[in-house]
């Protein structure tokens, strides 16, 4: 479903992704963790070309994304993206946030799009907020709207960039619950997060990134119980001692 072949990226002289190779199967849920500045967010932002790469190839569903000829609009409409800061459109109601791209990009009829949007809001547990504005919602509710907005495009993949990092502790669970449900239903997803409970519960694989490289990748139990690499051990000990 998603394949990286020797992907390299620089921000100026800063080498942020170094020879990344990975292959994610349809229906797989992958968690990427690692210290801040390790390139996790950059990695998933390259998948829908929010960030260009300088070397290597990225394929989504056998279409090479880093090629001039690729129809980025079409590609992006197949990839849901959830941001750390939600990035909901503050001047539009919740419902409008969800239907905008289906109507404008996928050219779906408004009625159908709204029906679908209401179903999705129901699914993320906030059917009664359709006519509210983002400023009237809590952080957890905002992030669930953002997930609904992603799902409204009926994507093949969902990408999550630290979806719970901007949330108050009591709201993290309501967002994770929605994500767990998605994973269980078989959505292909890549989640950048430090929520190790989530990783253990639903991830098929966990990647550990440091200094622009994927240092280690393994099934969650093996990853957490027997980390192979020193850097992984150091990182996990820091996270776990605080939990």
């Amino acid at each position, binding site marked *: 479903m998603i394949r990286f072949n020797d992907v390299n990226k620089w921000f100026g002289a800063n080498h942020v992704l170094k020879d990344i190779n990975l292959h994610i199967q349809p229906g797989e849920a992958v968690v990427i963790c690692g210290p801040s500045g390790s390139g996790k967010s950059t990695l998933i932002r390259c998948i829908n070309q929010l960030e260009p790469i300088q070397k290597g190839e990225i394929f989504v569903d056998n279409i090479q994304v880093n090629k001039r000829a690729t129809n980025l609009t079409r590609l992006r409409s197949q990839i849901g993206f959830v941001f750390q800061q939600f*990035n909901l459109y503050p001047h539009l109601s919740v419902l409008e946030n969800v239907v905008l791209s289906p109507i404008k990009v996928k050219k779906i009829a408004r009625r159908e799009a709204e029906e679908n949007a209401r179903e999705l809001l129901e699914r993320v547990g906030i059917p009664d907020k359709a006519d509210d504005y983002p400023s009237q919602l809590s952080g957890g509710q905002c992030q669930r709207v953002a997930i609904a907005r992603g799902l409204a495009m009926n994507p093949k993949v969902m990408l999550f960039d630290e979806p719970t990092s901007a949330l108050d502790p009591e709201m993290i669970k309501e967002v994770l619950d929605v994500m767990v449900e998605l994973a269980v239903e078989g959505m292909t997803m890549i989640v950048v997060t430090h929520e190790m409970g989530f990783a253990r519960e639903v991830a098929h694989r966990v990647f550990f990134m440091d200094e622009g490289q994927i240092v280690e990748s393994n099934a969650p139990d093996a990853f957490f119980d027997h980390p192979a690499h020193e850097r992984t051990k150091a990182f996990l000990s820091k996270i776990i001692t605080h939990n």
Partner: protein
Amino acid sequence: MYAFYFKSLIHSLPLFFKGLWITILVSGISLVAGTVLGIICGIFRTVKRWGLSRIMGAYADYMRGVPFLVHIFIIYFILPEVGIQLEPFPAAAIALTIYAGAYISEIVAAGILSVPRGQREAATAYGLNAFQQMRHIVFPQAFKVILPPLVGEYVLLIKDSSIVSVIGLTDVTRVGWLTVQRIPEGIMVFGLVGILYFVICYPLIHLSHILEKKVSYDAQ
């Protein structure tokens, strides 16, 4: 004597209203045209391609660095040298439009840049093209920031339109000049001119204040 002058001034009132109408007309036309020009140039100002941003910057710098009086002389007296002869009214309207457009483009560009980067990123990630992003996401949010200073700019435009009297357009300021030659009471004549400007500008100043308050309230 004073009473006599006052009476003649009252008799001249229709002339003042005619002048006021010209002022409203010339500033109204350049206000609309300048807004359109300013929005287009303001959007171009934020485009980092084809040198658009630089060209628009140079335009704004020209307008900021050259006095409006000189600018209007350039349009009215120098363009005929290259074969473009304009009547005072269109010359004044064009000069004011170019003038307002430059300042409005700065206001619009600042408004667009005030929209958080994440908004464009989200819109990009969800497949909206550059035009759709501007139309549905960026501009509606920028508009709130743009509106109060924009209305303030309209006030400046109306007041600065008084300068077009130098090229012979009979706006309300020029009516004042002509009248003061018959009625040598400067305070009285230009007091009236001032009041007429104030009457059209004040509601706009007030509107700008209201909008500013509303925007800062929304931001909370």
